[in-house]
Structure formats: structure tokens, C-alpha cells
């Protein structure tokens, strides 16, 4: 009796593992599918002119340089506003604030901020930055809008990385005559940096791929030249993709997939950088 049960247990275990492997594979299939499909369809469009040229013939030919440059500008703009603020907020929450109503409110606000649909951020940005603060439809307004959207991601991943640093390091550092800030700067941030960078890149990557928040705040349908000031509007890859997929009749399919491929490469490259940073840090972790 016991023997039969034992065999059954092993069989059940094998069955369970098999099932889990299958499910894991199923999650990989769509990702690989999307990448392969877009690469196959988009690769023929990629050329020097496509990457470095301006759109021609009502965007049906030529290049997408203004959209590429615009997305880079928006990503940098978002980083300028969201990274320092996000990291500072996380340091406050993890290292200084005690657990009380006030910090709990902040945490709930952050969680809810992360759940707000991106188009709502777009409307908020329109109201606050474009109209009330009078920045106009501009890189500045769009970057600020994207920054607010990115903040919760940066704050929560940074706070998590800070909390993952063993408490004992802080105690020891303090016992050696360090102030709290010295401890944070020399030990805690040092240790948490890879995790923080990963969170920052993932947050910015999401911002780079968003359409809705920039729709009313900074994105231009078509611009004959590159933006020259933060107060200019700009073309951007995700919005450009939306425009040429839905707003321009007789659009060559090749151009649409080419644009999608460039956006995908942009985002996946950021992802890859985050992965490399993380695995490197793991390899040299000293505790």
C-alpha cells in the first residue's frame, strides 16, 4: 500500500512540474511571437534614410528621425524630473519616516497613482502644465506629465531596494560614528544602487512607450524640423505610430511596422541595460 502511494507521489510531482513548465512556456510564446512578427515585418523598412531622414509624402515615405529624437528628448526630460524626486521620496520613506498616518497616506497615494490610467495623466497634464502653467503643448509639459506617471514606479522600486539592504549595516555604521545621512550615502545607497537603476530604467521605459499622456501635452502630428527648445512640441515614436496606423490613408504597411520595430528596439535596449546592471550587481554582491 505504502509503496503504491510513494510511486503515485512521484508521478504527481512529475505531472505538477510538467504542468508548471508548460505554463511558463505559454507566457514566453506571446512575447517571442510579437518580437519575431514585428521584426520580420518591420526589418525591410529599416534603412539609413528611415532612421536619419525626415518624413516625406505626408509621412508615407522618408524617415522617422523627428520621432526618434523626440522620444529620446521626452525620456531624458522625464528622467530629469522623476529620478531625483523619486529617489529622494523613497529615501525619505525608507530611511527617515516613521510608520504613521502621514507616511501610510503617502504610500496609499503612491499605490493609487500607479493604478491611474495613463490617459488620465494626459488630461491632468493638459490642465496643469499646458493650460494653467502655460507651458503650451511642449516637451516640458509632456516630460512633466510622464514624470508624474513614472514617479510611483521609481519610488516603490527604490524603496524596496533600500529596504533590502540589511538593517545591521545601518546599525554598524551608526555605531562607528556615522550620521544617518553618511550611512545612507556611503553604505545603503551604494548597496541599493543596482536595484534603484533597474527600477528607474523600467519606469522610463514605460514612459518612452506611452502615447496617451503626451497626446494632449506635447506630441505633434507632424513637424518639418527637430524641436529646438523644451517649449516646442515634438513628434514621438508611440504617437507617430498611432498617427500613421490610424490617421493617414494609404499608409504603406512597411513603414508602420518599421516604426513599431524601432520603438520596440528602443524599449528592449533599455530593458537589456537594466538586466545587465542587475546581473552584474548580483555577481559582485558582498553579502
Amino acid at each position, binding site marked *: 500500500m505504502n509503496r503504491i502511494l510513494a510511486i503515485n507521489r512521484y508521478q504527481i510531482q512529475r505531472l505538477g512540474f510538467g504542468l508548471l513548465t508548460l505554463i511558463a512556456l505559454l507566457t514566453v510564446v506571446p512575447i517571442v511571437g510579437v518580437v519575431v512578427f514585428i521584426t520580420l515585418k518591420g526589418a525591410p523598412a529599416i534603412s539609413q534614410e528611415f532612421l536619419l531622414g525626415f518624413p516625406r509624402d505626408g509621412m508615407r515615405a522618408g524617415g522617422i528621425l523627428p520621432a526618434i529624437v523626440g522620444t529620446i528628448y521626452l525620456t531624458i526630460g522625464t528622467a530629469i524630473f522623476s529620478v531625483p524626486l523619486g529617489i529622494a521620496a523613497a529615501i525619505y520613506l525608507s530611511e527617515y519616516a516613521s510608520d504613521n498616518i502621514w507616511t501610510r497616506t503617502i504610500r496609499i497615494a503612491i499605490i493609487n497613482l500607479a493604478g491611474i490610467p495613463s490617459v488620465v495623466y494626459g488630461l491632468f497634464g493638459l490642465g496643469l502644465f499646458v493650460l494653467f502653467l502655460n507651458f503650451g503643448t511642449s516637451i516640458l509639459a509632456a516630460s512633466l506629465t510622464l514624470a508624474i506617471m513614472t514617479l510611483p514606479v521609481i519610488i516603490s522600486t527604490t524603496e524596496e531596494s533600500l529596504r533590502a539592504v*540589511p538593517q*545591521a*549595516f*545601518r*546599525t*554598524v*555604521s*551608526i*555605531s*562607528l*560614528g*556615522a*550620521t544617518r545621512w*553618511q550611512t545612507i550615502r*556611503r*553604505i545603503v545607497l*551604494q*548597496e541599493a544602487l543596482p536595484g534603484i537603476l533597474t527600477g528607474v530604467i523600467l519606469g522610463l521605459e514605460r514612459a518612452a512607450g506611452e502615447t496617451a499622456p503626451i497626446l494632449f501635452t506635447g506630441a505633434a502630428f507632424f513637424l518639418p524640423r527637430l524641436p529646438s527648445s523644451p517649449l516646442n512640441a515634438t513628434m514621438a515614436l508611440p504617437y507617430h505610430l498611432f498617427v500613421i496606423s490610424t490617421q493617414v490613408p494609404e499608409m504603406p504597411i512597411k513603414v508602420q511596422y518599421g516604426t513599431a520595430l524601432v520603438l520596440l528596439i528602443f524599449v528592449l535596449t533599455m530593458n537589456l541595460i537594466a538586466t545587465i546592471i542587475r546581473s552584474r550587481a548580483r555577481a559582485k*554582491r*558582498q*553579502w
Partner: protein
Amino acid sequence: MDKIIVENLSLQYADGTESLQGINLGIKERAVNVLFGPAGGGKSTLLRCINRLNDLTDVKSSSGRILLDGKDLLDPDTDVIALRRKVGMVFARPVVLPLSVRKNLTYGLELAGERRKSRLDAAVERSLTLAALWEEVKERLDEPAVSLSGGQQQRLCLARSLALQPEIILLDEPTSGLDPISTSKVEAALQELKKNYTIVLVPHSVQQAARTADTAAFFLQGELIEFGEGKRLFTAPRQKQTEDYVTGRFG
């Protein structure tokens, strides 16, 4: 001569664990002062009062004084940074900072503003020698400190607090995670160190307490039961509870 005088010290943590009730105690200069007793007796709490590390903990209430060279270090105006440079601490688990061996040792000094390489190098060699570790790691100063063995790490922690040239060293069960050989190395280092430093040790066993104590204080549930010269306390305890504990009848 008493280096530290604890006067009527009471303390309660917010979470209700461990507390101290009206402790009066003298810590002798240049001696090994042992605080011992069963877990939860308040020994560590007292240690963490002496370098004000309890400032980081949720303390509900505290009263009394701790006089260091005649000045109350619990006074809110005390410069805690300066205090912690004067009062080094070694913890139960060896916690090396995620830095090289050398950087672990110079960490406190650099924070104190020392930049001269010659001074820092001298401090590294001196403190490692005092902690009986120099010969073992002198070729490995720039390796990560975690690459050392557990026993070496604990002596590195001792050396790290010595690098600041403190006057007092607090040790909270410094050998609890160590094998007998490493333990005896640490104990031997303490016997050397007490010639120049005031040592307050929470030992990890009664045997260690008896081996090392110049003065001994027996703590039970936040109260100081008995306090006296080490040999006398272990051979002829005056209190019944002390006798029961040192003879192994409970604990």
C-alpha cells in the same frame, strides 16, 4: 577607578521586550566588565545605552543617568557622534560592511575626517595587530571583507572599532557564532586589550563569563541581582539566584 557609573537607570521598550529597572553599577577602567544572565535580562539593552544606540530603537520611557568620566551621556545635549567614536561596539553576529578589509577599518576614521593615507595605513596595521588578525590578513587588505572566515570577520569587527582608538569597547556576545579556536583568540585579544581599554562584555556562556571577568554583574529580567569582583562572584555568590545560575541550576 570607575570609568562609567550607571545611576538608577530604568528603561522600557515600546514593544514591551526587555527592560531595565533601577540599575546601579560601576564599570571599572581598564578591566573586563562582564554583564551576564539569561536572555531577556537587559544586558544588551544596557550596552546599547552606553553608546546611545538605543536612540535608533523605539524606547517608551527611560530615566536615570550614565556617567562617563563624570558626564551624563544620556543628556540630550550629548554629542552622540563623538560618544560613539569614544565607545566602540562589537555585535553578536560579525557584520562586516560591504567594503574591502581595509575600507572596513578606515570607515570610521574617514567619517571623522581623517584623509592622510599614512595615518589610515598606520591605523589599519595597529588595529589589526591588536585584534590578533594582522598576520592572517596583511596580504588580503584589499579583498572584500566577506571573503574572510567567520572568526576572522569577528576579529575584523573588533579591529574596526579599535581603529577609532576608543576608550571603551562594548562586546555583545562577540563569540556566539564562533568555533572554540576563534573564541579563544578573541578572549586572548581581550586580555591584551584590557591593559589600555575599558571593556564591557556580554559573554555567550557562564563559562566565558567566569574565564574573563574582572568584575561581573548578574542580570535577571531587567534587574541587577548581584554585582561584584569577578572571582568572588563566581566562587562565592551572595545571592541565591546568582548561585543557582552560575552552578547551572537554571538558565
